[in-house]
């Protein structure tokens, strides 16, 4: 396994309904992984990151089981093999 991204169902609509995507290169950070994902599926990137490249406030990104908010954010380094989960925060009413 290399770096694999797991998408929320809302995002799969912009990824040919794929929910598990193995990235072609070995990204070194979460940001690089999201950019790599965005080259394949620009619509996914646009819904995870704002047009200024910031992570949307109610989107959670996990490297394995840990939220990147408690690591180094988009600069969080990635091991050679890992799973990144992109999920909506539990919020709203």
């Amino acid at each position, binding site marked *: 396994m290399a770096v694999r991204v797991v998408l929320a169902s*809302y995002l799969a609509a912009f990824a040919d309904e794929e929910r598990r995507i193995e990235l072609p290169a070995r990204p070194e950070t979460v940001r690089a992984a999201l950019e790599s994902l965005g080259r394949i599926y620009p*619509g996914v990137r*646009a*819904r995870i990151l704002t*047009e*200024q490249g910031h992570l*949307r406030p109610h989107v959670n990104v996990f490297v394995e089981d840990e939220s990147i908010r408690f690591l180094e954010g988009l600069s969080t380094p990635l091991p050679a093999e890992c799973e990144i989960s992109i999920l*909506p*925060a539990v919020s709203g009413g």
Partner: protein
Amino acid sequence: MKGKVEAAPISVEPGDPILLVGTTKGAFLLRSRPERRAWDIGGPHFPGLSVYAMAFDDRAGRRRLWAAPKSEHFGAELVCSDDFGASWQRPETPSIRFPAETEASLANIWQIAPGGAAEPDVLHCGVEPAALFTSRDAGRTWALNEPLWNHPHRSKWTPGGGGLCLHTILPGERLAVAVSTGGVYRSDDGGSSWAPRNRGISVYFLPEKEPEFGQCVHKVVRDRRKPQRMYLQHHFGVYRSDDGGDAWRNIGSGLPSDFGFAMAIHPRDPETIWILPLEADEFRCTPQARLRVYRTRDGGRSWEAMTRGLPQRLAYETVLRDAMCVDELDPVGVYFGTRSGKLYASRDEGRSWRAIAEGLPPITCVKAARAPGRARSRASARRPASRGRRRAA
């Protein structure tokens, strides 16, 4: 997917009146016959997403619905449908995006406004943070209006209860917009330059009582044929202008409250508007718990309460800034939706009302349109297909 909500479409025939209803949990489409006795309702489209802006573009042979669904998680975007909601075209990358140098990000789309009669491919969007975007190719590509974005006043605009949004666009030769809170701005050169147009509008929430800008304008309407006539609902105060917004005078005398959000103008009579007063400042519900639409037919010299068919006790209702509209039929139909999810209609210019839908999510916008083409006579009209259709009233 388990639990997925499928939108029920409506079947629309030429000449049908249509209502576009945005809510905090999706959009609904309603259709009727020109008599407007009964309405079919379809939806929800975009279930779970808020929809603050919708529009129908029937210019240049189009029959295109526009909507602005916003996911609290994944952002707002502009989508369209050429088949009355049976399918929606959703750009892979959202078409309204702030340029990098602005360092801003789109929070919501508050208004979608087709351009004037002389510009059939122009569309405008008012967004949050307060800015104007314009398309000159019928909505395919969009550009930020930089003169307004770079206006020296912008840094002093402040957010109202709904955020810092540009919520009203009056297209045409004298392009006007309203920002909450910033006030009215008008461009007489196609959007190349902008000037505040708030003279006469008084505020209680700033030290200066009639500032050049900073007013909390809630809605502005303009007569199509006599565009110098405008009306404005302010945070407190109902105003009229006879010179295209150069100066405003208060016409709120005789109302139970001069606070409110919604306002609609008669499509053929510049003397007639409808408003829905609310008790303010914190309460923001209908005064005395009575749901009353107020109408003037003499340009604001006098007001009459329109109550027939509307609840007159225990009606603590709120109607938001885009949740009232009129159609163009004769007599004019007037429509409004409440935050408690009730949708009311009058087909006699406000004299009588009935609820055509209840139990919807909180209603954020109501827009009336008419399907292009000539309506068939009632005798020859075939009932539309009933797939997913529900009778609203």
